[in-house]
Protein backbone atom coordinates (compact mmCIF):
# COMPACT_ATOMS: atom_id res chain seq x y z
CA UNK A 1 0.00 0.00 0.00
CA UNK A 2 1.39 3.34 -0.92
CA UNK A 3 0.84 6.17 1.48
CA UNK A 4 -1.06 8.17 -1.10
CA UNK A 5 -4.05 5.86 -1.41
CA UNK A 6 -6.07 5.84 1.81
CA UNK A 7 -6.89 2.36 3.07
CA UNK A 8 -10.52 3.39 3.46
CA UNK A 9 -12.20 6.14 1.55
CA UNK A 10 -15.89 6.94 1.79
CA UNK A 11 -17.56 9.45 -0.50
CA UNK A 12 -21.03 10.90 -0.23
CA UNK A 13 -22.45 7.91 1.62
CA UNK A 14 -26.21 8.10 1.98
CA UNK A 15 -28.73 5.90 3.76
CA UNK A 16 -32.38 6.51 4.46
CA UNK A 17 -34.75 4.28 6.40
CA UNK A 18 -38.24 5.07 5.23
CA UNK A 19 -38.33 8.85 5.45
CA UNK A 20 -35.53 9.16 7.98
CA UNK A 21 -32.05 9.97 6.77
CA UNK A 22 -29.66 7.99 8.94
CA UNK A 23 -26.46 8.90 7.15
CA UNK A 24 -26.36 11.81 4.73
CA UNK A 25 -23.47 12.32 2.34
CA UNK A 26 -20.65 11.48 4.69
CA UNK A 27 -17.07 11.65 3.40
CA UNK A 28 -14.22 10.08 5.26
CA UNK A 29 -10.69 8.93 4.66
CA UNK A 30 -8.51 6.72 6.77
CA UNK A 31 -4.78 6.47 6.10
CA UNK A 32 -2.94 3.25 6.69
CA UNK A 33 -1.80 2.87 10.27
CA UNK A 34 -4.06 5.62 11.53
CA UNK A 35 -6.54 5.47 14.38
CA UNK A 36 -9.68 7.40 13.59
CA UNK A 37 -12.25 7.99 16.29
CA UNK A 38 -15.87 8.63 15.35
CA UNK A 39 -18.05 10.25 17.98
CA UNK A 40 -21.48 11.77 18.09
CA UNK A 41 -24.60 11.91 20.22
CA UNK A 42 -26.97 8.95 20.38
CA UNK A 43 -28.75 8.30 17.11
CA UNK A 44 -26.30 10.33 15.10
CA UNK A 45 -25.78 7.50 12.61
CA UNK A 46 -22.46 6.11 13.81
CA UNK A 47 -23.47 2.46 13.86
CA UNK A 48 -25.33 2.81 10.56
CA UNK A 49 -22.15 4.22 9.06
CA UNK A 50 -20.24 1.15 10.23
CA UNK A 51 -22.97 -1.13 8.89
CA UNK A 52 -22.76 0.61 5.53
CA UNK A 53 -18.99 0.35 5.34
CA UNK A 54 -18.89 -3.30 6.40
CA UNK A 55 -21.62 -4.29 3.96
CA UNK A 56 -24.34 -5.27 6.43
CA UNK A 57 -26.59 -2.50 5.16
CA UNK A 58 -26.72 -1.39 1.55
CA UNK A 59 -26.37 2.36 1.00
CA UNK A 60 -28.79 4.42 -1.10
CA UNK A 61 -25.94 6.39 -2.57
CA UNK A 62 -22.25 7.15 -2.42
CA UNK A 63 -19.32 4.81 -2.55
CA UNK A 64 -16.92 3.02 -0.28
CA UNK A 65 -13.37 2.31 -1.43
CA UNK A 66 -11.26 -0.15 0.51
CA UNK A 67 -7.59 -0.40 -0.45
CA UNK A 68 -8.52 1.52 -3.57
CA UNK A 69 -11.19 -0.97 -4.65
CA UNK A 70 -14.89 -0.21 -4.79
CA UNK A 71 -16.67 -2.33 -2.19
CA UNK A 72 -20.01 -0.52 -2.18
CA UNK A 73 -22.83 -3.01 -1.82
CA UNK A 74 -20.60 -6.07 -1.56
CA UNK A 75 -21.78 -8.70 0.95
CA UNK A 76 -19.98 -8.68 4.31
CA UNK A 77 -18.09 -11.91 3.72
CA UNK A 78 -16.40 -10.50 0.63
CA UNK A 79 -15.40 -7.37 2.49
CA UNK A 80 -14.00 -9.41 5.36
CA UNK A 81 -12.08 -11.44 2.81
CA UNK A 82 -10.39 -8.26 1.61
CA UNK A 83 -9.12 -7.54 5.08
CA UNK A 84 -11.69 -5.48 6.94
CA UNK A 85 -13.10 -6.76 10.23
CA UNK A 86 -15.56 -5.21 12.60
CA UNK A 87 -17.00 -5.78 16.03
CA UNK A 88 -20.62 -5.34 17.03
CA UNK A 89 -21.84 -3.06 19.75
CA UNK A 90 -24.30 -5.68 20.95
CA UNK A 91 -22.15 -8.72 21.52
CA UNK A 92 -23.88 -11.98 20.70
CA UNK A 93 -21.48 -14.88 21.11
CA UNK A 94 -22.43 -18.50 20.53
CA UNK A 95 -23.66 -18.88 24.07
CA UNK A 96 -23.41 -22.63 24.49
CA UNK A 97 -19.93 -22.94 23.07
CA UNK A 98 -16.81 -22.58 25.19
CA UNK A 99 -15.29 -19.13 24.70
CA UNK A 100 -12.34 -20.33 22.63
CA UNK A 101 -14.60 -22.36 20.32
CA UNK A 102 -16.26 -19.06 19.39
CA UNK A 103 -13.09 -18.22 17.52
CA UNK A 104 -13.19 -21.37 15.41
CA UNK A 105 -15.77 -19.87 13.07
CA UNK A 106 -13.65 -16.85 12.08
CA UNK A 107 -10.59 -19.10 11.97
CA UNK A 108 -12.34 -21.19 9.30
CA UNK A 109 -12.67 -18.11 7.14
CA UNK A 110 -11.14 -18.17 3.65
CA UNK A 111 -9.39 -14.99 4.74
CA UNK A 112 -7.15 -17.00 7.08
CA UNK A 113 -6.20 -19.36 4.30
CA UNK A 114 -5.38 -16.38 2.08
CA UNK A 115 -3.20 -14.71 4.70
CA UNK A 116 -1.44 -17.76 6.07
CA UNK A 117 -1.21 -19.65 2.79
CA UNK A 118 -2.73 -22.82 4.17
CA UNK A 119 0.01 -23.29 6.76
CA UNK A 120 -1.90 -22.80 9.93
CA UNK A 121 -1.67 -25.16 12.84
CA UNK A 122 -4.28 -26.35 15.25
CA UNK A 123 -7.26 -23.98 15.27
CA UNK A 124 -7.92 -24.58 18.97
CA UNK A 125 -4.36 -23.57 19.83
CA UNK A 126 -4.57 -20.41 17.71
CA UNK A 127 -7.86 -19.56 19.37
CA UNK A 128 -6.39 -19.95 22.86
CA UNK A 129 -3.40 -17.77 21.90
CA UNK A 130 -5.72 -15.09 20.59
CA UNK A 131 -7.78 -15.12 23.75
CA UNK A 132 -4.63 -14.73 25.80
CA UNK A 133 -3.73 -11.72 23.69
CA UNK A 134 -7.00 -10.01 24.57
CA UNK A 135 -6.61 -10.77 28.24
CA UNK A 136 -8.16 -14.18 28.96
CA UNK A 137 -5.77 -15.43 31.61
CA UNK A 138 -4.00 -18.55 30.35
CA UNK A 139 -3.72 -20.13 33.79
CA UNK A 140 -7.42 -19.80 34.59
CA UNK A 141 -10.04 -21.87 32.80
CA UNK A 142 -12.06 -18.87 31.66
CA UNK A 143 -11.36 -19.58 27.99
CA UNK A 144 -13.05 -22.96 28.37
CA UNK A 145 -16.21 -21.67 29.99
CA UNK A 146 -19.38 -21.38 27.93
CA UNK A 147 -19.48 -17.93 26.37
CA UNK A 148 -22.96 -17.42 27.82
CA UNK A 149 -21.57 -17.53 31.35
CA UNK A 150 -18.92 -14.86 30.83
CA UNK A 151 -19.24 -11.33 32.26
CA UNK A 152 -19.58 -8.39 29.89
CA UNK A 153 -15.90 -7.48 30.07
CA UNK A 154 -14.84 -10.86 28.75
CA UNK A 155 -17.56 -10.85 26.11
CA UNK A 156 -16.24 -7.58 24.72
CA UNK A 157 -12.73 -9.01 24.67
CA UNK A 158 -14.06 -12.11 22.94
CA UNK A 159 -15.72 -9.88 20.34
CA UNK A 160 -12.39 -8.12 19.79
CA UNK A 161 -10.60 -11.46 19.51
CA UNK A 162 -13.13 -12.64 16.91
CA UNK A 163 -12.28 -9.63 14.76
CA UNK A 164 -8.55 -10.03 15.36
CA UNK A 165 -8.76 -13.70 14.37
CA UNK A 166 -9.51 -12.55 10.83
CA UNK A 167 -6.08 -10.90 10.59
CA UNK A 168 -7.60 -7.67 9.31
CA UNK A 169 -5.70 -4.71 7.91
CA UNK A 170 -8.53 -2.43 8.98
CA UNK A 171 -10.35 -3.00 12.23
CA UNK A 172 -13.62 -1.22 12.99
CA UNK A 173 -14.58 -1.26 16.66
CA UNK A 174 -18.19 -0.31 17.32
CA UNK A 175 -18.49 0.97 20.89
CA UNK A 176 -16.13 -1.57 22.29
CA UNK A 177 -16.00 0.24 25.63
CA UNK A 178 -19.72 0.65 26.20
CA UNK A 179 -21.00 -1.16 29.24
CA UNK A 180 -17.54 -1.61 30.70
CA UNK A 181 -16.10 -0.32 33.97
CA UNK A 182 -13.20 2.12 34.03
CA UNK A 183 -10.82 -0.63 35.07
CA UNK A 184 -11.95 -2.88 32.25
CA UNK A 185 -11.55 -0.10 29.71
CA UNK A 186 -8.11 0.62 31.08
CA UNK A 187 -7.14 -3.01 30.56
CA UNK A 188 -8.36 -3.08 26.94
CA UNK A 189 -6.66 0.16 25.88
CA UNK A 190 -3.18 -1.44 25.87
CA UNK A 191 -4.46 -4.19 23.59
CA UNK A 192 -5.58 -1.59 21.07
CA UNK A 193 -2.30 0.24 21.40
CA UNK A 194 -0.48 -2.98 20.72
CA UNK A 195 -2.58 -3.56 17.60
CA UNK A 196 -1.62 -0.10 16.37
CA UNK A 197 1.98 -0.87 17.06
CA UNK A 198 1.61 -3.90 14.80
CA UNK A 199 0.53 -1.53 12.03
CA UNK A 200 -3.21 -2.16 12.01
CA UNK A 201 -5.48 0.63 10.93
CA UNK A 202 -8.32 1.15 13.37
CA UNK A 203 -11.60 3.02 13.31
CA UNK A 204 -13.27 3.36 16.69
CA UNK A 205 -16.83 4.40 17.35
CA UNK A 206 -16.94 5.55 20.95
CA UNK A 207 -18.91 7.25 23.63
CA UNK A 208 -16.05 7.18 26.11
CA UNK A 209 -14.39 10.33 24.87
CA UNK A 210 -11.59 10.55 27.41
CA UNK A 211 -10.10 7.16 26.59
CA UNK A 212 -10.65 7.67 22.89
CA UNK A 213 -8.92 11.05 22.77
CA UNK A 214 -5.86 9.53 24.41
CA UNK A 215 -5.31 6.99 21.65
CA UNK A 216 -6.92 8.47 18.53
CA UNK A 217 -4.95 10.36 15.89
CA UNK A 218 -7.98 12.07 14.54
CA UNK A 219 -11.60 12.53 15.54
CA UNK A 220 -14.66 12.82 13.38
CA UNK A 221 -17.97 14.03 14.78
CA UNK A 222 -21.33 12.98 13.42
CA UNK A 223 -24.68 14.52 14.21
CA UNK A 224 -28.00 13.75 12.50
CA UNK A 225 -26.09 11.61 10.03
CA UNK A 226 -23.84 14.44 8.93
CA UNK A 227 -20.19 15.10 9.56
CA UNK A 228 -20.00 18.28 11.61
CA UNK A 229 -16.32 18.35 12.48
CA UNK A 230 -13.07 16.53 11.86
CA UNK A 231 -9.54 16.97 13.11
CA UNK A 232 -7.36 16.64 16.19
CA UNK A 233 -9.22 15.94 19.41
CA UNK A 234 -8.62 19.37 20.96
CA UNK A 235 -9.67 21.28 17.85
CA UNK A 236 -12.79 19.22 17.38
CA UNK A 237 -14.05 19.69 20.89
CA UNK A 238 -13.41 23.42 20.66
CA UNK A 239 -15.65 23.70 17.61
CA UNK A 240 -18.94 25.46 18.14
CA UNK A 241 -20.96 22.93 16.15
CA UNK A 242 -19.74 20.07 18.32
CA UNK A 243 -20.43 21.91 21.56
CA UNK A 244 -23.90 22.62 20.36
CA UNK A 245 -24.51 19.04 19.27
CA UNK A 246 -23.40 17.61 22.58
CA UNK A 247 -24.68 20.23 24.98
CA UNK A 248 -27.81 20.89 22.98
CA UNK A 249 -29.02 17.34 22.63
CA UNK A 250 -27.65 15.63 25.69
CA UNK A 251 -27.57 18.57 28.12
CA UNK A 252 -24.14 17.74 29.48
Amino acid at each position, binding site marked *: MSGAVPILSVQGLLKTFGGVTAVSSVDLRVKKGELLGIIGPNGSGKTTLV*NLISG*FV*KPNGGEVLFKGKDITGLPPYRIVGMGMARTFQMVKPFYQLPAFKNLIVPLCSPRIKAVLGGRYGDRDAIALDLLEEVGFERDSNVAYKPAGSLPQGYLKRLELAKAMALRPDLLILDELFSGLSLAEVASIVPIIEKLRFQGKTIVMIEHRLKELFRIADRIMVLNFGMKIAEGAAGDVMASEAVKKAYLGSEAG
Partner: protein
Amino acid sequence: MLLGTLIYGFVNSCLLALLAMGFNLTFGISGVANFSYGAIYIFSGFAAWIFLNSAGLPYALCVIMAIGLSATLGVLIYHVVIKRVKGLALSEVMATFGLGLAIMELFRYFDFVGFKYTLPNLIEGSVAIGDVYIDYQRIAVILAAIALTGFIYVFTHYTRTGLAFRAIAQDERTALTFGMDSDHIAALSMGFGSALAAAAAVVVLPLGTIAVEGGYDVLLNALAVCIVGGLGSTVGILVASVLIGYAQTITANYLEPHWMMLVSLIAIAIVLCIKPSGIFGHQKELEERI
Protein backbone atom coordinates in the same frame (compact mmCIF):
# COMPACT_ATOMS: atom_id res chain seq x y z
CA MET B 1 -67.05 -16.24 -22.11
CA LEU B 2 -65.12 -13.08 -21.41
CA LEU B 3 -67.71 -11.66 -19.06
CA GLY B 4 -67.98 -15.03 -17.35
CA THR B 5 -64.23 -15.18 -16.88
CA LEU B 6 -64.24 -11.67 -15.47
CA ILE B 7 -66.99 -12.41 -12.98
CA TYR B 8 -65.93 -15.86 -11.92
CA GLY B 9 -62.31 -14.73 -11.75
CA PHE B 10 -63.40 -12.04 -9.34
CA VAL B 11 -65.34 -14.55 -7.26
CA ASN B 12 -62.31 -16.81 -7.17
CA SER B 13 -60.06 -13.90 -6.17
CA CYS B 14 -62.39 -12.95 -3.33
CA LEU B 15 -62.50 -16.55 -2.21
CA LEU B 16 -58.73 -16.80 -2.05
CA ALA B 17 -58.50 -13.50 -0.21
CA LEU B 18 -61.07 -14.75 2.31
CA LEU B 19 -59.10 -17.94 2.89
CA ALA B 20 -55.74 -16.22 3.31
CA MET B 21 -56.87 -13.26 5.40
CA GLY B 22 -57.01 -14.96 8.78
CA PHE B 23 -53.64 -16.67 8.48
CA ASN B 24 -52.09 -13.44 7.36
CA LEU B 25 -53.70 -11.35 10.09
CA THR B 26 -52.45 -13.60 12.88
CA PHE B 27 -48.96 -13.62 11.45
CA GLY B 28 -48.95 -9.91 10.74
CA ILE B 29 -49.86 -9.00 14.29
CA SER B 30 -48.14 -11.49 16.52
CA GLY B 31 -45.68 -13.23 14.23
CA VAL B 32 -47.40 -16.53 15.01
CA ALA B 33 -47.60 -18.78 11.98
CA ASN B 34 -50.75 -20.74 12.66
CA PHE B 35 -50.33 -23.98 10.75
CA SER B 36 -53.51 -25.32 12.37
CA TYR B 37 -55.38 -22.75 10.29
CA GLY B 38 -56.88 -25.31 7.92
CA ALA B 39 -58.05 -27.40 10.85
CA ILE B 40 -59.84 -24.43 12.38
CA TYR B 41 -61.47 -23.79 9.04
CA ILE B 42 -63.05 -27.23 8.77
CA PHE B 43 -63.70 -27.27 12.51
CA SER B 44 -66.01 -24.31 12.14
CA GLY B 45 -67.64 -25.93 9.11
CA PHE B 46 -68.41 -29.11 11.00
CA ALA B 47 -69.42 -27.14 14.09
CA ALA B 48 -71.99 -25.19 12.07
CA TRP B 49 -73.22 -28.42 10.50
CA ILE B 50 -73.64 -30.10 13.90
CA PHE B 51 -75.48 -27.13 15.36
CA LEU B 52 -77.74 -27.07 12.36
CA ASN B 53 -78.48 -30.75 11.87
CA SER B 54 -78.06 -32.31 15.30
CA ALA B 55 -79.24 -29.44 17.48
CA GLY B 56 -81.65 -28.06 14.91
CA LEU B 57 -80.83 -24.43 15.64
CA PRO B 58 -81.66 -21.63 13.19
CA TYR B 59 -78.94 -21.23 10.62
CA ALA B 60 -77.97 -17.65 11.46
CA LEU B 61 -77.41 -18.65 15.07
CA CYS B 62 -75.34 -21.66 13.96
CA VAL B 63 -73.09 -19.42 11.92
CA ILE B 64 -72.53 -17.02 14.79
CA MET B 65 -71.90 -19.85 17.20
CA ALA B 66 -69.45 -21.55 14.83
CA ILE B 67 -67.51 -18.32 14.43
CA GLY B 68 -67.49 -17.70 18.16
CA LEU B 69 -66.43 -21.26 18.91
CA SER B 70 -63.59 -21.10 16.38
CA ALA B 71 -62.35 -17.84 17.86
CA THR B 72 -62.42 -19.45 21.31
CA LEU B 73 -60.53 -22.43 19.93
CA GLY B 74 -57.90 -20.08 18.48
CA VAL B 75 -57.44 -18.28 21.80
CA LEU B 76 -57.30 -21.62 23.57
CA ILE B 77 -54.64 -22.92 21.20
CA TYR B 78 -52.62 -19.82 21.89
CA HIS B 79 -52.81 -20.17 25.66
CA VAL B 80 -52.37 -23.92 25.87
CA VAL B 81 -49.78 -24.46 23.15
CA ILE B 82 -48.25 -21.45 21.45
CA LYS B 83 -47.63 -19.33 24.53
CA ARG B 84 -45.32 -21.96 25.96
CA VAL B 85 -43.08 -21.98 22.92
CA LYS B 86 -43.49 -18.35 21.80
CA GLY B 87 -40.50 -16.97 19.99
CA LEU B 88 -39.14 -20.38 19.03
CA ALA B 89 -40.10 -20.48 15.35
CA LEU B 90 -39.34 -24.18 15.04
CA SER B 91 -41.53 -25.12 17.98
CA GLU B 92 -44.39 -22.81 17.00
CA VAL B 93 -44.55 -24.25 13.53
CA MET B 94 -44.28 -27.86 14.66
CA ALA B 95 -46.78 -27.51 17.48
CA THR B 96 -49.48 -25.80 15.44
CA PHE B 97 -48.88 -28.13 12.51
CA GLY B 98 -49.17 -31.20 14.75
CA LEU B 99 -52.28 -29.85 16.42
CA GLY B 100 -53.90 -29.09 13.08
CA LEU B 101 -53.20 -32.62 11.90
CA ALA B 102 -54.65 -34.09 15.07
CA ILE B 103 -57.83 -32.04 14.77
CA MET B 104 -58.37 -32.80 11.10
CA GLU B 105 -57.63 -36.50 11.33
CA LEU B 106 -59.85 -36.75 14.38
CA PHE B 107 -62.74 -35.66 12.19
CA ARG B 108 -61.79 -38.32 9.68
CA TYR B 109 -61.62 -40.92 12.45
CA PHE B 110 -65.11 -40.01 13.63
CA ASP B 111 -66.23 -40.54 10.07
CA PHE B 112 -67.06 -37.00 9.07
CA VAL B 113 -66.79 -38.02 5.43
CA GLY B 114 -69.42 -37.86 2.76
CA PHE B 115 -71.74 -35.72 0.70
CA LYS B 116 -74.24 -35.15 3.48
CA TYR B 117 -71.83 -32.73 5.13
CA THR B 118 -72.88 -29.57 3.37
CA LEU B 119 -73.93 -26.20 4.65
CA PRO B 120 -76.99 -24.51 3.16
CA ASN B 121 -76.65 -21.39 1.06
CA LEU B 122 -77.27 -18.15 2.91
CA ILE B 123 -79.72 -17.16 0.19
CA GLU B 124 -80.88 -19.48 -2.54
CA GLY B 125 -81.17 -18.48 -6.15
CA SER B 126 -79.09 -16.76 -8.73
CA VAL B 127 -78.99 -13.62 -10.80
CA ALA B 128 -78.03 -12.98 -14.40
CA ILE B 129 -75.42 -10.41 -15.34
CA GLY B 130 -75.52 -10.14 -19.09
CA ASP B 131 -75.66 -13.74 -20.16
CA VAL B 132 -73.75 -15.01 -17.14
CA TYR B 133 -75.63 -16.57 -14.25
CA ILE B 134 -74.17 -16.20 -10.81
CA ASP B 135 -75.72 -17.61 -7.66
CA TYR B 136 -76.26 -15.49 -4.61
CA GLN B 137 -73.80 -17.53 -2.56
CA ARG B 138 -70.96 -16.48 -4.83
CA ILE B 139 -72.10 -12.91 -4.50
CA ALA B 140 -72.03 -13.46 -0.76
CA VAL B 141 -68.39 -14.54 -1.09
CA ILE B 142 -67.61 -11.26 -2.85
CA LEU B 143 -69.50 -9.21 -0.31
CA ALA B 144 -67.90 -11.07 2.61
CA ALA B 145 -64.42 -10.51 1.22
CA ILE B 146 -65.05 -6.80 0.73
CA ALA B 147 -66.75 -6.43 4.09
CA LEU B 148 -64.04 -8.24 6.01
CA THR B 149 -61.25 -6.32 4.27
CA GLY B 150 -63.03 -3.09 5.12
CA PHE B 151 -63.62 -4.27 8.66
CA ILE B 152 -59.95 -5.12 9.15
CA TYR B 153 -58.94 -1.75 7.78
CA VAL B 154 -61.29 0.20 10.03
CA PHE B 155 -60.48 -2.01 12.98
CA THR B 156 -56.71 -1.66 12.76
CA HIS B 157 -56.81 2.04 12.00
CA TYR B 158 -59.54 3.40 14.24
CA THR B 159 -60.07 1.22 17.32
CA ARG B 160 -57.93 0.98 20.42
CA THR B 161 -57.38 -2.75 20.20
CA GLY B 162 -56.67 -2.48 16.50
CA LEU B 163 -54.09 0.22 17.03
CA ALA B 164 -52.52 -1.91 19.75
CA PHE B 165 -52.37 -4.73 17.21
CA ARG B 166 -50.47 -2.55 14.82
CA ALA B 167 -48.17 -1.25 17.51
CA ILE B 168 -47.23 -4.78 18.53
CA ALA B 169 -46.74 -5.76 14.92
CA GLN B 170 -44.37 -2.88 14.33
CA ASP B 171 -42.27 -3.03 17.45
CA GLU B 172 -43.10 -5.49 20.16
CA ARG B 173 -40.51 -4.29 22.64
CA THR B 174 -41.49 -0.64 22.49
CA ALA B 175 -45.14 -1.59 22.72
CA LEU B 176 -44.33 -3.55 25.86
CA THR B 177 -42.74 -0.52 27.48
CA PHE B 178 -46.00 1.36 26.89
CA GLY B 179 -47.76 -1.21 29.00
CA MET B 180 -49.37 -3.30 26.29
CA ASP B 181 -49.79 -6.94 27.11
CA SER B 182 -48.29 -8.64 24.08
CA ASP B 183 -49.50 -12.04 25.26
CA HIS B 184 -53.04 -10.76 25.43
CA ILE B 185 -52.77 -9.18 22.00
CA ALA B 186 -51.24 -12.31 20.49
CA ALA B 187 -54.05 -14.43 21.93
CA LEU B 188 -56.55 -11.98 20.49
CA SER B 189 -54.80 -12.14 17.14
CA MET B 190 -55.16 -15.91 17.16
CA GLY B 191 -58.81 -15.52 18.06
CA PHE B 192 -59.31 -13.00 15.29
CA GLY B 193 -57.49 -15.10 12.72
CA SER B 194 -59.57 -18.10 13.68
CA ALA B 195 -62.79 -16.11 13.55
CA LEU B 196 -61.85 -15.01 10.04
CA ALA B 197 -61.15 -18.62 9.09
CA ALA B 198 -64.58 -19.53 10.43
CA ALA B 199 -66.26 -16.65 8.62
CA ALA B 200 -64.58 -17.77 5.41
CA ALA B 201 -65.74 -21.32 6.08
CA VAL B 202 -69.43 -20.49 6.47
CA VAL B 203 -69.40 -18.39 3.33
CA VAL B 204 -67.28 -20.66 1.16
CA LEU B 205 -68.29 -24.13 2.31
CA PRO B 206 -71.89 -24.02 0.97
CA LEU B 207 -70.29 -24.05 -2.50
CA GLY B 208 -69.13 -27.63 -1.87
CA THR B 209 -68.98 -30.26 0.81
CA ILE B 210 -67.17 -30.06 4.13
CA ALA B 211 -64.27 -32.47 3.86
CA VAL B 212 -61.10 -33.09 5.81
CA GLU B 213 -59.05 -32.64 2.63
CA GLY B 214 -60.61 -29.19 2.41
CA GLY B 215 -58.66 -28.25 5.52
CA TYR B 216 -55.38 -29.14 3.87
CA ASP B 217 -56.45 -27.30 0.72
CA VAL B 218 -57.29 -24.17 2.67
CA LEU B 219 -53.93 -24.15 4.41
CA LEU B 220 -52.29 -24.77 1.05
CA ASN B 221 -54.18 -21.92 -0.64
CA ALA B 222 -53.61 -19.55 2.26
CA LEU B 223 -49.90 -20.29 2.25
CA ALA B 224 -49.67 -19.92 -1.51
CA VAL B 225 -51.39 -16.53 -1.43
CA CYS B 226 -49.21 -15.40 1.48
CA ILE B 227 -46.02 -16.54 -0.23
CA VAL B 228 -46.92 -14.74 -3.43
CA GLY B 229 -48.31 -11.60 -1.82
CA GLY B 230 -45.82 -11.34 0.99
CA LEU B 231 -46.47 -12.49 4.55
CA GLY B 232 -48.01 -9.93 6.83
CA SER B 233 -49.07 -7.50 4.12
CA THR B 234 -52.82 -7.08 3.65
CA VAL B 235 -52.37 -5.28 0.35
CA GLY B 236 -50.10 -8.07 -0.78
CA ILE B 237 -52.76 -10.66 0.05
CA LEU B 238 -55.36 -8.81 -1.99
CA VAL B 239 -53.07 -8.37 -4.98
CA ALA B 240 -51.92 -11.98 -4.86
CA SER B 241 -55.51 -13.20 -4.57
CA VAL B 242 -56.54 -11.24 -7.64
CA LEU B 243 -53.52 -12.45 -9.61
CA ILE B 244 -53.86 -16.10 -8.69
CA GLY B 245 -57.66 -15.98 -8.75
CA TYR B 246 -57.86 -14.66 -12.29
CA ALA B 247 -54.99 -16.80 -13.52
CA GLN B 248 -56.75 -19.88 -12.14
CA THR B 249 -60.07 -19.00 -13.70
CA ILE B 250 -58.50 -18.24 -17.05
CA THR B 251 -56.60 -21.52 -16.95
CA ALA B 252 -59.74 -23.42 -16.03
CA ASN B 253 -61.84 -21.75 -18.76
CA TYR B 254 -59.42 -21.75 -21.66
CA LEU B 255 -57.20 -24.76 -20.88
CA GLU B 256 -58.53 -27.38 -18.53
CA PRO B 257 -59.83 -27.26 -14.95
CA HIS B 258 -57.20 -29.85 -13.97
CA TRP B 259 -54.48 -27.32 -14.55
CA MET B 260 -55.87 -24.82 -12.05
CA MET B 261 -53.64 -25.91 -9.21
CA LEU B 262 -50.60 -25.46 -11.43
CA VAL B 263 -51.22 -21.74 -11.42
CA SER B 264 -50.38 -21.33 -7.76
CA LEU B 265 -47.31 -23.49 -8.17
CA ILE B 266 -46.08 -21.43 -11.10
CA ALA B 267 -46.93 -18.19 -9.31
CA ILE B 268 -44.93 -19.34 -6.30
CA ALA B 269 -42.03 -20.36 -8.49
CA ILE B 270 -41.97 -17.01 -10.31
CA VAL B 271 -42.26 -14.96 -7.14
CA LEU B 272 -39.56 -16.96 -5.40
CA CYS B 273 -37.19 -16.40 -8.28
CA ILE B 274 -37.83 -12.69 -8.67
CA LYS B 275 -38.71 -11.42 -5.22
CA PRO B 276 -38.52 -14.24 -2.67
CA SER B 277 -40.25 -12.27 0.07
CA GLY B 278 -43.39 -11.85 -2.04
CA ILE B 279 -44.75 -8.98 -4.08
CA PHE B 280 -45.45 -6.73 -1.10
CA GLY B 281 -43.35 -8.66 1.35
CA HIS B 282 -41.24 -6.86 3.85
CA GLN B 283 -40.06 -10.11 5.32
CA LYS B 284 -36.80 -9.15 6.90
CA GLU B 285 -33.81 -10.33 5.07
CA LEU B 286 -30.68 -9.89 7.07
CA GLU B 287 -29.99 -6.22 6.60
CA GLU B 288 -32.94 -4.74 8.42
CA ARG B 289 -32.41 -6.68 11.58
CA ILE B 290 -29.24 -5.02 12.79
